[in-house]
C-alpha cells in the first residue's frame, strides 16, 4: 500500500503543509542500505522504507537556469500544465547560483555579461533581442548599431546582467515557476520496476519560494520522465590549491575567483605595495583584472599584478587557415564561450556527425580558455603594461607554499622552473565539471545505467536522453554542464540550454506526449509572451 495516486492524476506535494510525513526528521541523512543498493525500486520498497510518495509526470532536478529554460519550453512549446511538472531544487529562484557566480566574479547587476543579444533565457524566440529592447527602453539607437557593426567594427553587444535577471523573473512568474518548485535536497533518481522513475527529495521547511529551514524526512516523487540540470559539481579547486589549503589551513591568501574574495580588494586599499597573482586567462580573469586595475586607478593604490597563463597565445593560432583564433599578449580571444557557430551553425552540424576520438579532436580544436576582446580592457592592460605594474608569466604551477605572509608559487615554464611571490593569489581556472563529484550524477552512473561520454561527462543522445537509462515509457534527459562532450557543443550557455531544451521537447513530441509546435502556435505563444499573459 502506498499513498501515491495514479500517474495520470498528479498530486501537488504541499510542502511544508503536509503534516506528519514532512515533519523534521532527527537524522534525514540516509536511506535504508537495502534501498540504496537496489538499481530498481518498486512501490512496495518505498512503502517498506516508510517514504511518502507523490505522483507527477515530469520532474526537473536542479532548479537553476537549466531547469528554468527546460520547464519554460515544456510549458510554452509542449503546453504541459504547471501541475504536471515539479522542479526539485535547493535554490529558491532559478538565477540564484548564476547571480552568485556572476557577482563573485566581479559582474555587478549593472554590468554586461558575456552573452549574445538574441540569447534570451526568458524568451525562447530570441525576439525582440536584448539590443532591440534596450534601444526601445532607453530611446537610443546605440545598442542596435552595435549589433549591426559587431563583431568586425565593434565588439559584440552584450546585455546588462540586471536586465537578464529581471526578464527571467518576469517569465518565471508568467509560467508559474514557483507553483512547480519544491525546495529541498535531491538525493537520488532510481528506475521504477515497470517503467518511469522515483526521485528522492529531502524537502526543506518554509514557504516553497524561499524555504530556508532544515531538511525534513525524505519524500519520493514517482514520475514518467526526469530532467536533470544540476550544473557544475562545484568550484574547481586544482590539486595544488587543495594541497596548499590542506597543508597550511590558509583560506585567506589564495582563493578561487568564484569564492567571496572581497578581503583581497579591501587589503589593497591600505595603499601598501601588494602583489596579486591572477591565475588563468579566461573571462573571469579579465573581470578580476578589471576590478584590480580600476580600483588601483580610482583610489591611487600600489597594486602589482602578475598574471600566470598556462598557455601563452601571442598571435592567431589553430591547425589551418580555416581554423585560426585570434590571440594577443598571452590571451586567446573569442566573442563568447564557444565559436558562434556552435549554436546552430557549421560547428554544431560538424560535431553532430562525430563519435569518440573524432569528437574529442574537435572539442580540443575549439577548446582552451578564451576571453572577450573589449576596448576598455585593452586600454587598461596597455596602461598597466606601460607603467610596469602588470606583467604576464607562462607556466604550470608545480606547488604553492606559504613564506611568512606571502604565497610562493613554484612554476614550470618554457624557461625552466622558477618561483613567483605574491601577497594574494586569485585562481580563475573555473568550475568543476566532474560528474562523479555530484551525488545525483554519480548515482546515475552507479545505479541507472548511465555511461560517460568521450570527455568523461554523461553520455547523452542528440535528444539529450541519457543513454542506458531509458525505462519502459520513461526517459531521463540531461542538459547543461553534465552533458558537455556530446553531439552538441555549448551546452553550458544560455543559448545552449535553449537548444538542448528544444531537442528535449521535440523528442517528447516524437514520443507522442504532446504535439510538436508549428509556426501558428509559435506565433500565438509569442503574442502571449509579448502581452505578459500568464500560462
Amino acid at each position: 500500500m502506498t499513498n501515491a495516486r495514479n500517474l495520470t492524476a498528479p498530486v501537488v506535494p504541499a510542502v511544508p503543509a503536509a503534516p506528519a510525513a514532512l515533519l523534521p526528521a532527527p537524522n534525514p541523512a540516509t536511506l535504508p542500505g537495502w534501498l540504496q543498493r537496489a538499481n530498481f525500486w518498486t512501490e512496495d520498497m518505498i512503502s517498506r522504507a516508510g517514504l511518502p510518495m507523490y505522483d507527477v509526470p515530469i520532474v526537473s532536478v536542479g532548479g537553476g537556469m537549466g531547469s528554468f529554460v527546460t520547464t519554460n519550453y515544456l510549458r510554452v512549446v509542449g503546453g504541459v500544465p504547471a501541475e504536471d511538472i515539479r522542479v526539485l531544487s535547493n535554490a529558491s529562484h532559478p538565477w540564484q547560483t548564476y547571480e552568485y557566480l556572476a557577482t563573485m566574479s566581479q559582474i555587478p547587476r549593472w554590468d554586461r555579461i558575456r552573452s549574445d543579444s538574441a540569447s534570451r533565457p526568458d524568451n525562447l524566440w530570441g525576439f525582440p533581442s536584448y539590443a532591440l529592447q534596450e534601444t526601445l527602453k532607453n530611446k537610443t539607437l546605440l545598442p542596435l548599431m552595435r549589433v549591426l557593426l559587431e563583431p568586425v567594427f565593434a565588439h559584440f553587444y552584450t546585455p546588462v546582467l540586471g536586465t537578464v535577471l529581471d526578464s527571467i523573473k518576469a517569465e518565471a512568474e508568467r509560467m508559474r515557476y514557483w507553483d512547480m518548485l519544491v525546495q529541498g535536497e535531491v538525493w537520488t533518481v532510481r528506475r521504477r520496476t515497470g517503467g518511469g522513475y522515483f526521485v528522492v527529495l529531502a524537502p526543506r521547511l518554509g514557504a516553497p519560494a524561499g524555504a530556508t529551514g532544515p531538511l525534513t524526512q525524505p519524500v519520493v516523487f514517482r514520475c514518467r520522465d526526469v530532467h536533470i540540470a544540476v550544473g557544475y559539481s562545484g568550484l574547481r579547486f586544482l590539486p595544488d590549491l587543495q594541497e596548499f589549503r590542506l597543508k597550511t589551513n590558509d583560506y585567506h591568501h589564495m582563493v578561487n575567483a568564484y569564492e567571496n574574495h572581497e578581503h583581497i580588494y579591501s587589503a589593497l586599499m591600505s595603499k601598501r605595495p601588494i602583489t596579486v597573482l591572477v591565475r588563468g586567462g579566461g573571462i573571469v580573469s579579465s573581470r578580476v583584472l578589471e576590478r584590480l586595475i580600476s580600483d588601483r586607478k580610482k583610489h591611487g593604490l600600489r597594486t602589482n599584478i602578475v598574471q600566470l597563463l598556462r598557455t601563452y597565445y601571442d598571435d592567431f593560432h589553430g591547425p589551418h587557415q580555416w581554423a585560426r583564433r585570434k590571440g594577443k599578449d598571452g590571451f586567446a580571444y573569442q566573442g563568447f564561450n564557444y565559436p558562434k557557430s556552435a549554436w546552430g551553425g557549421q560547428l554544431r552540424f560538424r560535431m553532430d556527425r562525430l563519435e569518440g576520438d573524432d569528437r574529442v579532436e574537435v572539442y580540443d580544436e575549439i577548446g582552451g580558455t578564451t576571453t572577450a576582446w573589449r576596448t576598455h580592457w585593452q586600454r587598461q592592460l596597455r596602461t598597466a603594461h606601460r607603467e610596469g605594474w602588470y606583467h604576464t608569466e607562462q607556466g604550470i604551477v608545480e606547488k604553492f607554499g606559504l613564506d611568512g605572509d606571502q604565497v610562493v608559487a613554484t612554476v614550470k615554464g618554457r624557461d625552466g622552473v622558477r618561483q613567483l611571490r605574491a601577497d594574494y593569489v586569485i585562481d580563475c581556472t573555473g568550475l568543476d565539471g566532474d560528474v562523479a563529484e555530484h551525488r545525483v550524477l554519480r548515482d546515475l552512473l552507479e545505479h541507472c545505467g548511465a555511461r560517460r561520454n568521450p570527455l568523461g561527462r554523461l553520455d547523452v543522445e542528440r535528444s539529450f536522453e541519457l543513454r542506458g537509462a531509458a525505462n519502459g515509457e520513461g526517459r531521463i534527459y540531461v542538459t547543461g554542464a553534465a552533458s558537455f562532450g556530446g553531439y552538441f557543443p555549448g551546452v553550458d550557455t544560455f543559448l545552449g540550454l535553449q537548444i538542448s531544451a528544444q531537442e528535449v521537447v521535440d523528442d517528447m513530441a516524437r514520443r507522442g506526449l504532446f504535439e510538436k509546435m508549428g509556426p501558428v502556435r509559435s506565433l500565438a505563444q509569442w503574442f502571449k509572451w509579448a502581452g505578459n499573459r500568464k500560462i
Partner: protein
Amino acid sequence: MVPTILGRIQTRLFLLAIVGGILTALITPVLPVDGPMGDRFQATFIVLAAIAVIGIAWELIYHFVMQWRWEKDWPTLFGLLTLVPEGIAVWLLAHNDLLPGLPGAVPTDAFLIHFLVVWVIVWAVANGPMRVPFIRWRFRGGRLV
C-alpha cells in the same frame, strides 16, 4: 547569424518567395515605370526570381568567404552590405534586358526602389521576426526543412 550552406539557400529562397513576393506585389503598381500592368508585374517578378536564383551562386561565395572566420558566423552588416555586389549584378542583367522573360529593359530608378525595399526588409526579417514562427530555424543554420 550562423548559417550553413543549405540554411543560407533555403532562407534566401523562402524569404524572397514569401516576403519578397508580397513586397513586390505591393510596390509594383507604384514604381516609376511605364507600360501595361501585366508587363510591370512580369518585370518585377523576373527581377525577384533573378535575385533568388543568381543568389544561390552568391551564397556559395559567401559560404566560402565565411570559412576564414573563426566563429563561422555571418555578421549582420555583411548580410546588409552584400546588397551592393548583388544589386549591381542583377541591375546589369535587368538594365541590359539580359534576363530571360523580361518584357524590356528595366529603368534604374524603378529597379533601385524595388531592389532596396525587398533587400532591406528581407534582411530585417531574417535578423529577428523570422525567429518567431520558426523556433528551430536559427538553431539549424537557417534550414527550414
